[in-house]
């Protein structure tokens, strides 16, 4: 069963099978040592640019800012949920630490 993944409305949200699933303005704790000097990036998601799915994990390339130190950029593709048996499940993004998958751009 295929799952349709899209970034829409100028990067405002992730659509999974035509349902809004993840919106900008969420705050995530991100483990991306190369992004800034904070122990954990206190990351405000400002805009989504690309969505990928690998090994059932859905990840979004996200532009944003560490609201502790002010560094802006793209910390890589951040995993936001998973597709399990053809169904999308949100990660508990408020309460977990997200680690970028794939390339981690320098800010």
């Amino acid at each position, binding site marked *: 069963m295929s799952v349709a993944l899209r970034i829409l409305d100028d990067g*405002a949200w992730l659509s999974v099978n*035509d349902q809004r699933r993840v*919106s*900008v*303005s969420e705050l995530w704790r991100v483990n991306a040592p190369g992004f800034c000097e904070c122990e954990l990036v206190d990351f405000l998601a400002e805009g989504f640019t690309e969505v990928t799915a690998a090994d059932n994990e859905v990840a979004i390339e996200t532009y944003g800012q560490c*609201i502790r130190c002010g560094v802006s950029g793209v910390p890589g593709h951040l995993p936001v949920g998973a597709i399990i048996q*053809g169904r999308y499940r949100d990660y508990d993004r408020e309460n977990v630490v997200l680690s970028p998958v794939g390339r981690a751009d320098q800010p």
Partner: protein
Amino acid sequence: MPSDVEKWKSEVYGNEIREHLFRFAEEGWDSIPEDETDAWLERFKWWGLYHQRNGQESYFMMRIGTPNGVLEPGQTEVVAELAREYATGPASNPEFGEAYVDWTTRQSIQLHWLKLEDIPEIFAKMEAVGLSSQQACGDSWRNIVGNPMAGKAPEFVDALPVIQELNERFKGNEDHSNLPRKWKVSVTGSANGSGQGDINDMAFEPAYKEIAGEEVRGFNVRVGGGLSRNEPRLARSLDVFARPERVADVAGGISALFREYGDREDRYNARIKFLVDEWGTEKFRRILQEEFVDFELEPAGTDLREQYTYNAGGDKAGDLVGVHEQRDGNYFVGLNVLVGRMGASDTAELAQLADEYGSGEIRISQRQNVIITDVPEERLDDLLDEELLNQYSPDPHPFMRGSVACTGTEFCSLSIVETKNRQVRYARWLKENVELPESVEDFHIHLSGCTASCAQPQIADISLRGMKTRKNGEAVEALDIGLGGGLGENPQFAKWVGQRVPADEVPGAIKNLINTFADNRTDGESFREFIARHEEDELSEFIEPEETSYDDPMMHNTKLTWYPYAEEDSMDASPAPTDADGNPLEESTPADD
């Protein structure tokens, strides 16, 4: 590979969307096939309908495009009626009530909380008086902007007939209905720069040149301006002069060039400003000449930019608020609408005043204000005594006059923070608590919820942009602060010198900044000049955020609410989606629940 949006556009786009829209309206919101929702909602934008944000499913914002902001006699009362009858949602706004009209920075109108099922009726009422939402959103020619008083205030060259010709030629035109991205056009004939051409994709600005021994008045052409996504650009001169009768052909050529060469694979790179970056203006002009026009382009004429006063940093407001004489000896009266939002009943009253004292016409400015036109001199005093003008003043305090705000998290998917109600509270607090230095009558504070920059923050004296920060460990809404932006002969974007200031400390920061300005300005120095002569690190120090008596009830993450001002505001409390009558529908079960 073309994006999904491009794929949907290649299947159904432009005028033909209307028949599908009407079919879905007749059958109801839940008749849209679940696996086609994204596609249809994207297409509906072309007809001016924008699905509201998360938690407000099945409700739409509708944008009505009014070329150059002109509302002809009879149209304003219909806008008021539409707002009253259809633009009410399941919750009300504590500042603005249950039904209101937004006048926008692109001289358009926005109504919220519309139901899909009502659209055919709404369209019929609009079209009966010549209003339309066609192409008000989506990837095509948007509402054409300019000096709102074109045709009536002094102009170097008549812009209104040109704007009307462009509107007629390019609205519903199949050759230009599917562009790679939105297409924003400004045409200005007045010598004051009030069309804001510098921040548009394509701008026609007044100019003249001697041709065959005679002075010909027309327009110079600029391309590639825009403010969005942390990539602001000023429009760049194309070294082309267009006589008024040639403007539509030149514009059509440039629009076609964009259609053919704009990036359809990456929507973030699609605006024409990026093509101008990549090509440079020389190549752009050459390709335009070789492939898209069948006449010789004339080199640019002499422009009037030295005369630009609008938002040029001087002491005098150039915003058309107040009483001004028209060319014909009548007067127009510009009214300040704080953050551009007016209640439906006030809008009806505005229409009535326009009928009673003027010609019935209303015009919308790019500062979210409205203008009553064609008032005979002998009727002015009576108009100025009307009660409505107490609230929408022709002589407002500079902080009320200078406030502009976008839609914000109340309805918008992109915004990071609440905006309109916050800017209303800021303006009121500043008016009560901060004294502007003598002779400063024009002071612009623009609040935009995100980098899309719909409130045009980069061209304000004080620019505010949505952010978040932590305060006492809690995540709170915050704003970045920029300073010293403006237009004029030498336009410049604001310098972003304050980062992540908690929203409740912003008024204190502005107060301290203005006090520093008052204490240190040289004789007659404007705020913009003052900012320009300081380095960014100095300016950062001028911003001293602090808590004051200002109280901000929207410090929490308003985006995580279904509606920021609802009594029960959690997403779970949202009634959406609803049926035609506003009754909650049983939402299709998300795949993981």
